[in-house]
């Protein structure tokens, strides 16, 4: 798979913000991950080559920061906060519920590739605890009913998207 053509341009634009290209590794990895879904070795090498920096510098960042994924994740990454404020507001019951309805544990992905489940440290939105981040969005004040509604909506959204691709392909 060749990298999407605008990856290089986006990374160059990020690099222009710093006096040293090494500083652009983090933004470059975020750009690459957005385009590829995760960061396999080949993408890491591509990033190193575009920036002209040591490959080891790129690897060591990709494995240090928790938002970088070197392995594939599901279409929806359910990131449930289980830090103190969320725990005090019932995050444990939510975790148990997700594990039951999706049949996966922490760090696992459903067989259809739709959901990956993780618990995460404080998301910085404790006023709406318990909170879960899915993609770019925060979902707060969760209870079992809201959680079920969210999962149903995400499934429908994925189904609609799949339907649209099929139609376009026909």
């Amino acid at each position, binding site marked *: 798979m060749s990298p999407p053509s605008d990856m290089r341009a986006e990374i160059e634009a990020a690099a222009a*913000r710093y006096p040293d290209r090494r500083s*652009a590794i983090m933004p470059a990895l975020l750009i690459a991950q957005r385009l590829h879904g995760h960061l396999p070795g080949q993408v890491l090498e591509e990033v190193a080559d575009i920036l002209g920096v040591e490959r080891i510098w790129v690897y060591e960042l990709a494995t*240090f920061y928790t938002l970088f994924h070197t392995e594939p994740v599901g279409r929806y990454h359910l990131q449930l906060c289980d*830090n103190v404020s969320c725990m005090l507001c019932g995050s444990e019951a939510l975790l148990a519920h997700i594990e039951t309805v999706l049949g996966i544990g922490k760090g696992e992905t459903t067989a259809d590739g739709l959901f990956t489940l993780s618990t995460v440290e*404080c998301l*910085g939105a*404790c006023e709406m605890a318990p909170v879960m981040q899915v993609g770019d969005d925060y979902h707060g004040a969760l209870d079992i009913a809201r959680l079920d509604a969210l999962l149903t909506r995400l499934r429908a959204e994925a189904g609609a998207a799949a339907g649209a691709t099929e139609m376009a392909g026909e």
Partner: protein
Amino acid sequence: MFEPVLLKNLDRPDAHRLAAYEATGGYRGLARALKEHTPDEVIGIVKAANLRGRGGAGFPTGMKWGFVPKAPGRPKYLCCNADEGEPGTFKDRIIMERDPHQLIEGMAISAYAIGAATAYVYIRGEYVKAIRTLGAAIGEARDKGYLGQNILGSGFDFEMHIHEGAGAYICGEETAMLDSLEGKRAQPRLKPPFPAVEGLYASPTVVNNVETLACVPHILTRGDDWFRDIGPEKSPGPKLYCLSGQVRKPGLYELPMGISLGELVEEHAGGPLSGRRIKAVIPGGVSAPVIPAEGLGVAMDFDSLAAAGSMLGSAGVIVIDDSTCMVKVATRIIEFFHHESCGKCTPCREGLNWVVKVLRRIEAGRGAPDDLDQLRDLCKGIFGNTFCALGDGAAMGLRAALEHYGDEFAAHIDRQKCPFH
């Protein structure tokens, strides 16, 4: 009657837009700084206001700016700490999402004072909405000439960029943040040299928290004596308090520094949930030692909380009621610190690993009689022996939990089960 300062525009639907910000006096502080004051005078005003850093340590902001060498030569940098990883804290996110021009204006004034032409805002990557909103606001400010070349005809040039974090609490520690900005793994640096002398790219650098910088425009427009007159003399100003946990009205509250913790929790945040009693409150994010219900009279300012054996920290106020097991809370907190330990020094990396194991077995009903002594010894071994304050914070918090709730820990071991399940 206290009038909100930092949150005064929060209820306006368009508060994040430049026009709304200007309509309530926005960017007049910057204009005043550039047209009426030298950089040194701006530092003098911030010193006179006695603004202290809202990132956790309460270091005097004007003094920090004054440490930056005046000599031309190396470029100088300003870094805004918007990593906001301290559990229980969400104030900086709300400033950036709802009224981001305050931060931009504060940064421009700060950069003028220290002679920086470039700034980075280090925002944790999870804060997608804040990143977008602040990014759009920077664009608006640039278009209007509040950023860029020759700002407001003053000859001052200043540009700012967002640097997205990628999930690591330790990036909030200022020197680890600088390493992260340089494209390295985020691990704290030895101090001295302090960042003001040798920071980003070995250049003089000021690191300030979002809320600290957001106070600056108001000090410039309303005067240092106005600011100093709010709250206690040694720790003045308006303050954002983040209320969460087992409390009726969680949320962000802006009140003077020095308000009592009890008033904050009982009157403003509505007190405990129905049928419950407050057992303990963590006043400043999980790095701050817990305060038992009897201690809620303490004033919420840097000095009073330090005197009470805790700290104001990030003012992340977490309310815990009598239905909650303190061993479980302590375990979760230490698990957090262990997970976020950067691994650079042994007392933190290995010590916390050990502490987690002991706490988990106590909570699971498998604690041994000498486990509490063991925990106390581990705290002693960690505290004061770690490279950065992460390890200290973990040990201090656990020590306080053992001191105030030792009976609960002991009950777990005696009965070989958690009394709360």
